[in-house]
């Protein structure tokens, strides 16, 4: 956030909310290894301490709990993990994701390894929310929308629009960390399973 506005400068609003497309695109420049060009940024307030949320996200095996369409994420080593994503028609697609920046309690950035069918990258940031309201969690996700079958995988993973998926995944993260569960209207387990597919 700017300390003050010099003449000709913009405002304090996040770039992802800019009216001009070229300013919106600058939001992606913050990513060290930007892969892809469809960007989405969203912030949610979570009523938990910064470090706790960082720790949850840093243990990448937790991610399928909150991200729809992620089947599993397994750590390959300290920096690399294997992401398995549901594909239309019942199959799966996978890639290796590498952590490109890691500042404990503050920020995690990742990017898919060279050769991934779906180049993608993202960053999640944790900041103390003002007024003791917990933590501001901001996610920025970039991907290269490919054509064909893999395009459908990605369309499913990010639903219609990555912004919608990022927003919903952040809400699920918030629900899980604040309440210990993810809200569902399913009346029984069979309905719940159906909704997961």
């Amino acid at each position, binding site marked *: 956030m700017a300390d003050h506005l010099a003449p000709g400068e913009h405002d304090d609003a996040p770039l992802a909310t800019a009216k001009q497309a070229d300013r919106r695109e600058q939001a992606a420049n913050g990513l060290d290894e930007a892969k892809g060009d469809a960007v989405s940024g969203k912030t949610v*307030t979570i*009523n938990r301490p910064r470090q706790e949320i960082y720790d949850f996200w840093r243990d990448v095996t937790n991610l399928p709990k909150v991200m729809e369409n992620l089947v599993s994420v397994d750590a390959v080593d300290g920096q690399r993990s294997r992401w398995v994503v549901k594909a239309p028609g019942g199959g799966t697609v996978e890639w290796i994701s590498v952590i490109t920046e890691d500042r404990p309690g503050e920020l995690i950035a990742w990017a898919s390894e060279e050769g991934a069918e779906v180049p993608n990258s993202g960053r999640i940031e944790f900041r103390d929310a003002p007024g003791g*309201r*917990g933590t501001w969690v901001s996610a920025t996700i970039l991907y290269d929308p490919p054509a064909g079958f893999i395009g459908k995988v990605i369309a499913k993973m990010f639903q219609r629009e990555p912004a*919608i998926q990022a*927003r*919903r*995944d952040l*809400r*699920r993260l*918030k*629900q899980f960390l*604040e*309440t*210990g*569960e*993810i*809200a*569902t*209207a*399913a*009346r*029984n*387990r*069979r*309905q*719940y399973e159906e909704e997961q597919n």
Partner: protein
Amino acid sequence: MRALTWHGKHDVRVETVDDPEIVNPRDAIIKITSTAICGSDLHLYDAYIPTLQKGDILGHEFMGEVVDIGPGSTLKKGQRVVVPFTISCGSCFHCSKHQYSACDNGLPADNQDIAQPIYGQPMAGLFGYSHMTGGYAGGQAEYVRVPFSDVGPIVIPDGVDDDKVLFLSDILPTGWMAAENAEIEPGDTVAVWGCGPVGLFAVQSAFLMGAERVIAIDHFPRRLELAKRFGAETINYEESRTYEALMEMTGGIGPDACIDAVGLEAHGFFADNVWDQIKVSTFMGTDRAHSIRQAIIACRKGGRVSMPAVYGGFVDKFPLGAFMEKGLTLKTGQTHVQHYMPGLLNAIMEDKVDTTFLISHRMPLEQAAEGYKMFHDQQNEVTKIVLKPGMDQAPAA
């Protein structure tokens, strides 16, 4: 199990559907012993509320016995509980401020997208009240799944009859919060539009909070009669002109606080005779947000307007000028039920508040569709219908 399901305008049916089960750790399953039809349910019956789907189970005022619990529930099997109509997590920022109906986490993540563009932020979940409020199955059924059962339901001591405590689920706290939002001061005159359950509990609560006079407005003689029993003066808007009557009854000052307990189905056809003159200059029409407009115009300068009544979307010709010039305060909202339940249960146990006067009909769940039709068509006689799943099928009492 058997449950009352929605199929379209004026088409509700009791059908056999899948039983509910524990899905999340904090869930409980309640076997319903009493469940009421609410004025808000009539908005669904009249198909005013979007995002209802065929087969949705209705009902948000219910109580019963705990028959199953998840590992995160604090309830015990066999306990009798009343369940709040708002589904709130108890641990988000809003819940920690006791603004339970503004809970961040009550709605499934995907459903939050429906309310966001209309309201700016998504609200709490509600039982049996369309997919905009979460798509949760309601309690006009034999069983119901209750999320966050460690936060919402209140345990009822043995030996206290269902009929005395059932309304803790919604309308009693709603009437109470409406009176609290009116910020009543000693010596105040409070006007209440609508003598349905919410209005009647607001009348009762206003007196308990120290109002000197309460003026109740409706057109159903039987409902006005109930308000009179609590000590209210009455205006029958079919016989008298509401604004003129209120001004005469308050020495030209207007009521200190005005409570709108009518809402989006305000019966509007009478409006002309009261409003002819004002209408010409302010373009006010006769559409359905009549009672809140009238409350704002009648309210004394610097007074308070409390609006428990439900409005869904946008309102036309809102008298913003009168509101601003007179320096009024408006307080409203879905009720923060969890906040009010413990205090009001005590008030019931100490016989300070009576709720049973309201119940005009008790019938088995199997006759629920008939109950909806009666409640819709005969509002003078029918003040509140309580459905009892266990009750023998007999002519309505």
